[in-house]
């Protein structure tokens, strides 16, 4: 099972279901990067690492996926990016639930904060979010 794709489903569904986040980013939740032509602010997710943990007597127990989830905004002001990041914490830290038709996220823990700034031309981009470790098993 490809756990990263199940976690991607989970992230998109949870973001779409959260009215507070949707009020900021609309439906702009993407696998990183933000597609050309899409406006900001947006949320992106990026799998950084993953692992499969076999259980005794089984070939497949559960998988872990380390996912960087961040809000990306344009402009020097950090306020909006921080608001998105805070909401991502509420949505995903200690989250659990179905991840597509055949998988379940049974734990999720934020492991690290993430903060990055970039300047392209005269435009600032702020990235604020965190690395979340998702624990996933086949349903």
């Amino acid at each position: 099972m490809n756990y990263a794709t199940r976690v991607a489903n989970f992230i998109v569904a949870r973001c779409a279901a959260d009215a507070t986040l949707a009020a900021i980013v609309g439906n702009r939740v993407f696998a990183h990067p933000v597609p050309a032509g899409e406006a900001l602010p947006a949320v992106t997710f990026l799998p950084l690492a993953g692992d499969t943990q076999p259980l005794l007597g089984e070939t497949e127990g559960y998988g872990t996926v380390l996912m960087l989830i961040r809000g990306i905004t344009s402009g020097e002001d950090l306020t909006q990016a921080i608001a998105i990041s805070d909401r991502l914490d509420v949505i995903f830290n200690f989250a659990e639930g179905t991840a597509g038709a055949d998988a379940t996220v049974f734990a999720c823990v934020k492991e690290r904060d993430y903060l990055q700034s970039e300047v392209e031309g005269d435009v600032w981009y702020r990235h604020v979010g965190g690395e979340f470790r998702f624990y996933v098993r086949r349903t």
Partner: protein
Amino acid sequence: MSVRVSVHNRLPAIQKDVTPRLRRAVAKVLFDILAGGQSRAPIDTGALVNSGYYNDGSRSTYGKAVTAARARRANAGITPEATPRRGGSTEVWGTVGFSVAYAAAVEYGTARRSARPFLRPSVEGAKRTLEGLVRVELRGL
């Protein structure tokens, strides 16, 4: 009849021996992380790969890495050496980094450009290695 119980306190000797053993384990894992990161890093000019360095607390390869990166891309922006938070004298630490300024943009992407994570996956893989190395080093204390 009497019983004599004596206790030999080896704790000070063990404590003295633990730190160098842990340093050895950390040094090995730093090298693994660096090698893994370099093997995953995308290669264009070779500056990114060559900018990788480690510091095990007694030796830093930062200067050498900066020279090697600049040999590949003379105008590459360079970031300062990463310095870890230091705890007490018994703490064993080390750092691995890539000194070219665009390393973070490659690892995590930018708003509009794809990411190519090369260091983080290596760190994840090394966690298990470190557990095994520490176990081996502490055996026989």
